[in-house]
């Protein structure tokens, strides 16, 4: 019950895209001043009794304090809510998007126990979009929520342990560089990984694939790398158009998909694969129980539940990745998982040992 109360309080305190700025409790008065419950109630158009009970509960979490009877002042925690834009997005996404989705997730998996369709999630039930559209489509129609989710995710994955440098420093790039090979970044957004790699390695050619809208909004690249980086509109649920590349790369992609769709994504590569082509995945890799502190393990396991509630997707163990490749096609040979020290993500690698693609020249 306590958690529900905190949820209400956070819901009222954090910024709500549907509510004007002045209605935010955290921003109801400046961090360097104080205000009475009555003043705050007037500012946010709520009843004073309710403002008082919400804020006094929040105070038990050190969000706001009451320096003298009836007078509210900020604390460090309420200041975070009032001033930190990234945390504002995070809290908003947690309490307005994730919380309602989580509350419907058991219902969703009772209705569809395989939990494999992104249109049959707790998120879909909570948004009345079951069997209609997946979360990304819902957010696609609502720029405010989409932006908030982007900000929330960036505030988590922009932190320590998620830097692209781990990927750059802990994989053998010299082989592909020495042969001037091709690297395909599937679902590569605006090509962040390729830009960093291109600055470090002078011979690799890059193709960044994403949906047309994302490709169209990619910023102009520096002249010294732009001739080696090509953007291409491509839906990774369909056949891979770049044939004969050396590395096909997925960062933050597979964990957005259930096995059903992840298997299809891997199989869509096969018509393009040459013998020896690598498939490299940069994602969370669930540890076996007890390998990390419960705190660290909880973060990654919560992320696994997030994927379930929002997308019917999942995080995977090393064994899960191995099975995924084996089931996709016996031609994939699983090479293993590397987790760089200090990094929350892992590098998962497989090599194609099946039939060579149908002989067309590589791009």
């Amino acid at each position, binding site marked *: 019950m306590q958690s529900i109360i*905190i949820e209400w309080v956070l819901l009222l305190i954090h910024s709500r895209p549907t509510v004007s700025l002045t209605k935010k409790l955290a921003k109801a008065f400046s961090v360097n001043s104080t205000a009475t419950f009555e003043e705050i109630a007037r500012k946010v158009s709520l009843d004073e009794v309710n403002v008082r009970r919400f804020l006094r509960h929040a105070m038990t*979490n050190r969000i706001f304090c009451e320096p*003298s009877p009836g*007078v509210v002042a900020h604390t460090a925690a309420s200041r975070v809510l009032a001033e930190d834009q990234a945390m504002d997005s995070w809290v908003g996404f947690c309490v307005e998007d994730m919380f309602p989705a989580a509350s419907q997730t058991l219902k969703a998996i009772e209705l569809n126990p395989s939990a494999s369709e992104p249109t049959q999630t707790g998120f879909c039930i909570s948004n009345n979009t079951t069997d209609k559209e997946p979360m990304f489509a819902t957010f696609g129609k609502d720029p405010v929520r989409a932006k908030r989710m982007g900000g929330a995710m960036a505030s988590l994955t922009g932190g320590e342990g998620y830097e692209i440098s781990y990927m750059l420093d802990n994989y053998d790039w010299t082989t592909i560089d020495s042969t001037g090979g091709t690297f395909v970044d599937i679902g590569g957004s605006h090509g962040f990984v390729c830009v960093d790699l291109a600055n470090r390695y002078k011979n690799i050619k890059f193709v960044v694939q994403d949906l047309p809208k994302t490709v169209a909004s990619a910023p102009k690249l520096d002249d010294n790398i732009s001739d080696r980086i090509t953007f291409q509109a491509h839906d990774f649920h369909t056949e891979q158009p770049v044939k004969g590349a050396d590395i096909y790369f997925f960062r933050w992609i597979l964990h957005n998909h259930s096995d059903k769709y992840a298997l299809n994504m891997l199989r869509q590569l096969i018509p393009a694969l040459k013998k020896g082509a690598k498939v490299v995945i940069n994602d969370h890799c669930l540890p076996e129980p007890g390998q990390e502190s419960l705190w660290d393990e909880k973060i990654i396991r*919560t992320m696994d539940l*997030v994927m379930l509630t929002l997308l019917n997707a999942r995080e995977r163990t090393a064994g899960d990745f191995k099975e995924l490749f084996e089931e996709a096609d016996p031609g994939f040979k699983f090479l293993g998982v590397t987790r760089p020290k200090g990094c929350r993500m892992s590098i998962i690698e497989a090599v194609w040992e099946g039939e060579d693609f149908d002989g067309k020249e590589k791009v």
Partner: protein
Amino acid sequence: MDKVRTASNRLSIGSWSLPFRSNSQRKQSRNLSVVPATAVGESDSLNHSKTGISHAPLQPRDIPITSSTNSLSKMTQTKSLIELAGTITRETEKLERYLKESGCEMPGFGIDSPLNFPKLPEDIKTAREEVMRATKELGDLVTGPTESVRWMAWDVSYAPVVEDCSN
């Protein structure tokens, strides 16, 4: 200043207390700055004069040891990390000694561990509560406000799944 008492090295105001700090420390602390009266909400008309105490409006995050209103928030008082760790050690020792001496089983996570604490005498009950409170407070402090808010929101958003599953 009738509500202000000193006891050993502690300044005690109303129901809370904290250690003295020297004047020089006070002056250096930004926490002790006082906002002009004009910046204070209407609430300042709350009748502080009744208590005969001149009310200095508080800065947020203040440690208001110079102010003597008796309703200062405990929430912004910050104990030192070591002080809290000391409380945890001291009170845990009391608790463990009692449990051993009275032949109680030690708490644990295993299936055979006791499911509840035994009925404790008042002082030991207080010691246990102190350990719980100080542990939480120390944890919150070393987590810091931003990360505390982050994980509070995150845990809250997952509560429905976990609670559903345990029902």
